[in-house]
């Protein structure tokens, strides 16, 4: 655009009454995790709210509750707890015409507080002749916590008027976690399973959300 056009545009803008950018607030629900949990004798309720507070920037807050059953050949335990994530997303997608989709990249700080109930375990004895029995213990490990960062890329597509389907992938970096006596932090609500070879984790989420404009 030439300097002349630019100044013309500016003078036109000042003639038209200023059109206010609508405040866009979206609330979403992780439907994928909710269904997956239901199919695996667990519970998950994961919500977020985001607000387009400045140009292409969104402020996002996520919270969730999980009651997660882990059932392996060695361990059976329940994880119950809440998590909270606060972060900023940046929209990198240019919409055509009046479309209102977005592709965002962002970072969130996350905290989870949770308890374990160790229901039972089977001793690991690789060369066992007498097969180890299952030990029913029902032992509790309470007041555990973890802190991590989520680096998230997310697509949100307006599928019906104001209704969005979203898909997000996250790389997670665990910064700290509790160290209970006689056990270890394994599953973390909002993070998924901690692995023993690194502090990184990976996650995916499938959202349904609704956007309010006012």
């Amino acid at each position: 655009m030439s300097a002349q056009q630019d100044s013309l545009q500016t003078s036109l803008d000042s003639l038209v009454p200023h059109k206010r950018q609508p405040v866009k607030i979206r609330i979403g629900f992780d439907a994928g995790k909710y269904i997956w949990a239901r199919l695996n004798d667990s519970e998950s309720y994961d919500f977020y709210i985001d607000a387009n507070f400045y140009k292409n920037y969104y402020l996002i807050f996520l919270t969730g509750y999980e009651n997660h059953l882990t059932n392996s050949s060695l361990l059976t335990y329940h994880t119950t707890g809440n998590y909270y994530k606060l972060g900023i997303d940046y929209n990198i997608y240019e919409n055509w015409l009046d479309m209102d989709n977005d592709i965002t990249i962002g970072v969130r700080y996350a905290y989870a507080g949770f308890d374990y109930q160790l229901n039972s375990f089977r001793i690991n004895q690789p060369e066992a002749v007498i097969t180890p029995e299952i030990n029913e213990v029902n032992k509790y490990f309470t007041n555990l916590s973890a802190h991590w960062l989520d680096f998230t890329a997310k697509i949100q597509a307006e599928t019906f008027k104001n209704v969005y389907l979203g898909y997000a992938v996250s790389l997670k970096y665990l910064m700290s976690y509790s160290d209970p006596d006689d056990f270890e932090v394994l599953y973390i609500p909002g993070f998924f399973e901690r692995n023993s070879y690194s502090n990184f984790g990976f996650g995916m989420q499938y959202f349904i959300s609704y956007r309010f404009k006012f």
Partner: protein
Amino acid sequence: MLAMWLFAALLVSCEKDDSCIDPTTPNLVIQFYDYDSPENVKSIANLNVVYLETGDTLKFQNVDEIKIPLNVNDDSCLLKLVKDTASDMVSFTYQREYVFVSKACGFKTLFHNLEMNVSHAQWIKDFEIINHEIVIDTSAHVKIFH
């Protein structure tokens, strides 16, 4: 959009599994020594270890050391040690401790205050417990003299 959801669902199934690399429940290590010259090991041509609880048998040939799993379900393990046709009853007693190892390995059992008793001795002339704590199985816990 739908295609993307399906693609992502496929990705979920390829997450790397942890595999257990740490030591888990240790075995009992028994070494066989010569009764007549107790400094020297003395191997056994054919040795069968019969677990009396289940009737399972472990077979060894030309061994001067065996590593055998104990019973993690009880504070004792009853064995019949059969050398050729001679069979001796050996019982081990201990206290068990459960220790969490890792997500991939789960829990292991450690055995404390190991005691041994031999009855109907036909070939075992003497024994010595050299380590009452079974926490690793890289060195002998028990010497049997024959």
